[in-house]
């Protein structure tokens, strides 16, 4: 069964460094998302991407964040200058359709630790 994959599984970085988190969505999906989950808290939406552009973003997704789909398979999340509070699990998700009943499939996550 097709699945969303993410790399790396764990990333440790120093505060102020740039990190790039990588995702390979399910191949025929058209909608792509990043979410994060701080330890012990709810899963929170960051950004959605459709038709090669950002379609929605939350207030968490500030100028330090960017997303890219550099080729037909990868979907990346870049954090330009990491802060301690960026430490979290980052989940990529993809879906075939939007609108009512849109179903999203999540990857296993990247655990980001900012020291």
């Amino acid at each position, binding site marked *: 069964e097709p699945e969303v994959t993410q790399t790396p599984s764990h990333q440790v970085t120093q505060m102020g460094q740039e990190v790039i988190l990588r995702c390979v969505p399910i191949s025929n999906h058209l909608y792509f998302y990043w979410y994060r989950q701080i330890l012990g808290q709810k*899963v929170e*939406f960051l950004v959605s991407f459709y038709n090669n552009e950002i379609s929605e973003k939350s207030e968490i997704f500030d100028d330090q964040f960017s997303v890219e789909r550099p080729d037909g398979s990868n979907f990346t999340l870049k954090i330009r200058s990491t802060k301690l509070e960026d430490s979290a*699990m980052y989940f990529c998700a993809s879906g075939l359709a939007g*609108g009512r009943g*849109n179903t999203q499939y999540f990857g296993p996550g990247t655990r980001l630790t900012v020291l």
Partner: protein
Amino acid sequence: TQLLEQSPQFLSIQEGENLTVYCNSSSVFSSLQWYRQEPGEGPVLLVTVVTGGEVKKLKRLTFQFGDARKDSSLHITAAQPGDTGLYLCAGPQTGANNLFFGTGTRLTVIP
């Protein structure tokens, strides 16, 4: 602001027992999805419910979407230790595709 409240927050039961967990909101959702999450892993989709009053079954799991599409329930029959995990409900934000997640119910099934 849309809120999804799940109850109970924690539930610990013996193997073989039945249980129901709830996902409630004051807002109408066009659909709701249920996920199960293991520690350190991503949410795994269990079901999507779309139509008010809809009931879906997945083996021993029964999902119901409220008639007014403001609430949903998950009933597990004869719980097994493999059912242990964090159960999350999520629905799309109004007018958007991104999901808003509930607080979760952490289920522990004791052998």
